[in-house]
């Protein structure tokens, strides 16, 4: 075989090997894949278990996280069946997706357990997170002295989006804030620093002190009654209207009594 023939053969084999993975496998039919918000994920995990108890063997689930924006983008591209989102639809969202509301959730302002701040008004929260108040001595009721360390979420977070809209309004969050990637990391950061303050979903406040907002405590009862103002919606996003197994799952969540009981354990059910 001549030199050029050998070279051609090598390139042909290389090209075919490289093209082989491009023929992707078809998606499975009876698996519901879910990705998205880290706040919605604990609720989704409980709902999946409840659904499989009610209808065993009907369908299998795959749950991932990644943040509200990842959920919305994945669903729009068809990579997952359902996307979890803890933020309301934005005008910059991709087209063709439908937001199905499943629950409501409270966002709590949390501090370290050795810093039992009782109540924070909206003006105080805007001043703290906006960087105008930087010392705990300026907040009455705080149990620590020294500088305030604010912990927030990264830009793509649904919790951050809800916090900005509900608590901050038009005030911008200070640029010296530490940006963490999930509720769990924010909770961990507050737990390890007595001077820290941040915001987490109600399900993540174990071991932390949550401050009252405008005199109303951040509890499930207050969120259900509507008295606590820091509540936001949880959505399950589908590509177009939900069909098939996904539609049955979302219908079960919205209409069945057992699903409402599961949601009522830590979140606000819609009925």
């Amino acid at each position, binding site marked *: 075989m001549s030199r050029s023939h050998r070279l051609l053969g090598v*390139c042909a084999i*290389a090209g075919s090997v490289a093209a082989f993975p491009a023929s992707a496998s078809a998606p499975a039919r009876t698996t519901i894949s879910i990705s998205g918000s880290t706040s919605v994920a604990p609720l989704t995990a409980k709902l999946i278990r409840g659904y499989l108890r009610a209808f065993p063997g009907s369908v299998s689930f795959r749950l991932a996280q990644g943040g509200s924006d990842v959920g919305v983008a994945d669903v729009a591209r068809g990579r997952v069946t359902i996307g979890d989102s803890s933020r309301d639809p934005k005008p910059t969202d991709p087209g063709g997706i439908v937001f199905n509301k499943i629950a409501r959730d409270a966002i709590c302002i949390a501090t370290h357990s050795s810093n039992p701040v009782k109540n924070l008004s909206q003006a105080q929260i805007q001043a703290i997170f906006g960087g105008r108040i930087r010392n705990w001595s300026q907040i009455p009721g705080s149990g620590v002295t020294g*500088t*305030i360390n604010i912990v927030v979420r*990264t830009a793509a977070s649904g919790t951050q989006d809800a916090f900005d809209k509900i608590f901050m309004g038009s005030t911008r969050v200070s640029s010296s*804030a*530490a940006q963490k990637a999930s509720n769990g990391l924010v909770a961990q950061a507050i737990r390890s620093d007595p001077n820290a303050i941040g915001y987490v979903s109600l399900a993540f406040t174990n071991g932390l002190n949550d401050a009252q907002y405008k005199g109303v405590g951040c509890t499930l009862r207050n969120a259900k009654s509507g008295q606590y103002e820091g509540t936001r919606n949880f959505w399950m996003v589908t590509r177009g209207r939900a069909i098939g197994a996904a539609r049955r799952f979302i219908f079960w969540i919205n209409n069945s009594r057992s699903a409402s009981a599961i949601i009522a354990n830590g979140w606000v059910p819609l009925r």
Partner: protein
Amino acid sequence: MTDRRVELLLGALASVVLLLIVGMVIFVFTKAWPSFANNGLKWFGPGGNVDDQLIDIFNSPANPANYVYKLRAYPLIYGTAITTIGAVVIGLTFALLSAIFIVEFAPPRLRAVLEPVVRLLAAVPSVIYGLIGILVLVPFIGNDLITAEQKKSVAFVVQLSGSSLLVAVVILTVMITPIMIAIIVDALRSVPRSWTEGASALGVNRWRVIWTISVRAARPAIIAAAVLATARALGEAIMLSMVSGSVGFAPNPLDGLTFLFEPTRPLAATIVDNAEGLSVKPFGQTIYAFAAVLLVSSLLLSLSGWAAKQPLKRYGVRA
């Protein structure tokens, strides 16, 4: 299996690897181009707060004509440079001295324990170091080492909370030193015995033998170890995103001791923290721009490793 068939097959495998690397580089650069094009060389310079700029890029309006691209990534590049250079300089010193001890001065029983332990440490996944950092080191430094006066002194610019440059450099050093020790030990052992025995016969003590002969002969391997460790440090993302501070800030050396306690966030950690925003087009292109900078820096690293070995060839050292 004829020779011709084996040649074709192995050549194909090697070509696939090459195609993969070339494809990856081209993919990253095409995606990253709009971010560089809209900022020019100012992309690498200072100016404003990089976290605010990233939030503005993420909140760009939906109309492609109004995409926001403005970015001045100097704090991120500076953070990457000081954590990497700090960790490699400290790690290389430790690694060289430990390797000399293991090869020459360690009692046989201690050597039998040290060598497997070093190789084991080199294989530990980096996220475990990150967990130890975030659960042990960060609270210790934040609550016991940093004083309230230091926190107050920089309170109007940045907050000191324990996750800082110091933790990043310490854990990065611990992460990259074992592999450097392993490489340098192998290199020191492969120096021809006739050289070291000849020097001992002339009456030179063990320390001078190993320092003036073995270490000089092993310089190419020491350079290779340093390049490998720098490459690992440059690419370390998850661990640094947990412990280095989560703020795009350039620590100021003029602050004295507080410089070590200031937070920063190297490029790879920034990519990991912001990877969720890939769906927003200009934000995704900015993240690809960070990746392109990391790719170019690893290329420059390999080139500098090669260039550092060139002067050694003059003395007949097998570089």
